[in-house]
Every structure is written in structure tokens, then in C-alpha cells.
């Protein structure tokens, strides 16, 4: 019989944020230098910059993975702790990951995730 861990069926805490897509010169560079299907581009694209208070609400720390549930889709991205205060706003680099969530500024829910960051081909379907 499979052993269940404590809290396995408890929903991860969520917080609501407005997603703002932002340019990132390093991401643009990675896309040109390594290609848009490279791991370098993915690591710099699948990111959300969150305010520390929002991170505390969903019990995540810097570099943890979170699920972002947008108006039009869901993505798994890595959390980056913001140096500036901006509660309720999540900054995501411009590009496919941000686009999956909907036209900006889009409303979204964020919660902790156990899944890994998907390849761009799996994020974006035609």
C-alpha cells in the first residue's frame, strides 16, 4: 500500500498577482545566441519576480518553482525574490511563457509547484 505523506492532500496556499511582462536583455541575448529552444533561454524566460510578502503567503523562497494560473493558461516558472516592494504584482519576462498567461496586464494565481519547468514546445501549442 502506498504511503501518504502528511499534508499531501492539502492545497498549496495561493496568492493573486497581476502579471506584467518585462523586457530582459539577457533573455534576448540568450535567444539570439543559443536559440529559443535552448535551456539558457528557458531558464531566463520561465521566471516570475515576486514581492517577499507574496512569497511568504505561498510559502516559497528564492529559486523555488511555482505554478502560475493565468486567464488563458498555466505555466511553471522559477521564483526570483524582488529587491523592490511590489506586492500583488509579478514580473515575467516578455515571451512565450508570459503570453501563455494572457494579454498583459493579466490577473493570475500563484502557488507552489512540485513539477519542473516544461520545454517551450510543451508550453506553447498550436
Amino acid at each position: 500500500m502506498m504511503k501518504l505523506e502528511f499534508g499531501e492532500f492539502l492545497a498549496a496556499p495561493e496568492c493573486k498577482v497581476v502579471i506584467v511582462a518585462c523586457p530582459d536583455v539577457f533573455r534576448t541575448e540568450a535567444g539570439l545566441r543559443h536559440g529559443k529552444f535552448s535551456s539558457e533561454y528557458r531558464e531566463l524566460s520561465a521566471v516570475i519576480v515576486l514581492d517577499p510578502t507574496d512569497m511568504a503567503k505561498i510559502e516559497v523562497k528564492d529559486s523555488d518553482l511555482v505554478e502560475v494560473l493565468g486567464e488563458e493558461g498555466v505555466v511553471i516558472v522559477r521564483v526570483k525574490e524582488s529587491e523592490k516592494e511590489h506586492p500583488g504584482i509579478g514580473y515575467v519576462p516578455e515571451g512565450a511563457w508570459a503570453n501563455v498567461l494572457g494579454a498583459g496586464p493579466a490577473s493570475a494565481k500563484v502557488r507552489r509547484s512540485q513539477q519542473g519547468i516544461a520545454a517551450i514546445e510543451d508550453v506553447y501549442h498550436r
Partner: protein
Amino acid sequence: MMVCTGCALLCDDIEVGENDCRHACRIGDAHITSTNQIDPMVNRSPVDMDTAIKSAAEILVSAEKLVFVGFGNLVTEAQATGIELAEKVGAEIKTFHTGIFDDILDGRVKTCTLPEVRDYADIIIFLGCDPMNTHPRLLSRYAYYPRGEKRQHGWEEDRTAITIDPRFSHTASICKDSYVIDPHRQIEFMDALMDALLSKVPKTAYDKKRILKLAGTLKKAEFGVIFAGTGAAAPPRDAIIRLMDRLNESSDFRLLSLAPGYNLRSIAEQLRQLHSRPTDDCDVVDSDSNSGGSNGGDGGIDLHKADCILCLGFDLMNSLPAHGINGKLIVIDPNETLTSRYADVVIPCAAGGIDAAGSAVRMDGEPIELPLIRESGRLSDVAILKRLLEVV
């Protein structure tokens, strides 16, 4: 000296060696040295160029709701050929982010050249844009750091740069002042600033004292410049124009657009000329999207309903929330993109200003010749579009 087509600054001081690329920014260096090229493909299988062009022509001829998107990363000559092709096959042209160029070209707002910014600008506003991440050399070549003819003390004393943006951006971190605005309350901020410019206490939840201070700074400008972004982070275009009108009641401000693509101003100019033709009976419609909405335009054919989309130097899927594209996709691009991965036909072309010569128009309207950096044997975008024009 070479010209970099990594962005609309078209930096003309680039030196390309065997193994290095001097003076270029991160984007420019990666753009010039990129080896991420694609092969001609039909239905995601490699083919020769002739087959790819023939397949593209067949799709173009049989489609009824055709849309051409992009144009911002094509040389001027290719844009002209693309317009001819659109006229011939009855396609709609969608150029994104050209709205502010239209306002400038129509004379609705004052503008200036980048050397004028360098020589005369004392107050510089970065509105809904982050040039440190999109046009990395703007501040060092023109907008902030250099000594200009009337600004010999440069940024230390002669210039005040301010950001107004939904994020405390990298550009904000080096400016003297920054205003972080709520992404859903951008118009409220703009209206408050316009009230403050009339010396009224604004009715707003934003910090009134700071907005009055900002208005006081702007009113003192001898030569003010607003660099406006064109994406979702920027205030709506009509709010920017209203702010410009209010500023110019008491001061002297000019507007420049910081849009993606190295040659977007040129396509805006060409389409404006096309529509001002006295006997304009063509079907070409240009629809611009300031917000990058999901249907990719304020009017015309919804991209979801198009039965064929020709992407010209434009990574549609990486640029718009373009879910549910159902029509055939044709891509003409120098590099592999997310869109090319899903396209029905992929036609690789030489990159303007790298392995294809041509001309372009800088973001401030200055025509620039783009010499060849290296030979590659790839067909230019002009040559490909001309071949399509011959067979459709």
C-alpha cells in the same frame, strides 16, 4: 564600420573582426554573431528552397483571409516588395507597435532626432519603456550620458532622466527619479500629471506631492523628450498624446517611440504613403496594435480567423498571446523561432545588415544604409519576396 540591426538605434560604429564584434551591445553582438539559422521546411520536413517557395506560393494563392504580419525586421526594400505582394494577393498587413510612429508622421506630436536629444535634451522621460533592456546603447549614445552641444555637463548636471513605468526597471535604477505606476491605473496617473501641469492638485490615490513635483520639473524643461514604449507596460497611445499636448502648453517636449524591430519606422512611412495615394484602390489594410491583444490588432481580420498568416521577420508566437492560430503559417526569417517550429512553410533568408545589404530608417526617421557584414549565400528577404511575387 558596420551598422547593427539588433534594434532601431541602428548603431553605425560597429567593428566586426574574425572573432569579435566591437562596440556592439549584448543584443547587437548576439544578433550579429548568431548562428542559429534554419533550413527550408514544408510541413516540418526539410526541403530545398525552390520547393519551400513553391509551397508558400500555393498557400498564398489559395487563401481567402490572408494576413501578413511583422515587417519591422525587414530592410526597406523588402518591406516595399512585401507590400506589393500583399496588394497582389489581397492580404491585410498587420504591423504591431507602429501607432506612435503614425502620430509622429501625421504631425500630431512634435518629434526630434537622436543627435538633437544628445545635443539639447535636458529632461528625458522614459515612459512605459526600459531601454537598458531593449535599446541598450540609447542612454550612452544619445539620451543621458553623452556631452552634447548645449549639454556639456552631460548627465551629472545638465540632464534629468525620469522613468514612469509599472516596474522599477534597470533604466530606473540609473535615473534621477522614478515613478512606479499600477499597471491597471496608468490613465489615472497620466490624468493626475496633466492636472498637476495646470497647477491643480490632482485627485488621485497616487502621491500628490510627488506628482506636483514631477509637473514642476517638466514645466521647466528647455528641450524635453519622452521616449515612449509601445507594449502592454506603456500607457495607452491617446493618453500619451494628450500628455504631450498638455506639456507643450507650458513647455517644449518631443516624442520618440521605442518599439521592437529595427525598421518599424520605415514600414509606418511606407504604409502612410500607400494610403495617401490619390487613386488608392488597393485592399492592403494596416492595423496596428498598441496593446498586443490576443487578436493582434485593433481592426481587420482576427488572426484566429485568418486562413493564412505570413510572418515576415516576426516571431508571432513569441510576441503575442496568439492562442488558437488555425490558418496556414508561412515564416520568412533568418533564424529559427518559436513560430518557425510550428509553421507549415519555412523560408530562411539572409539577415538585413548582416548577410544582406539594404537600407533602413532609424527610429528618429534618419535613413541608414546597411552594408554587408559577411557573405553567406543565403537568399535575401527581397529576393524571396520577389520570387513569390513572380509566381503568385
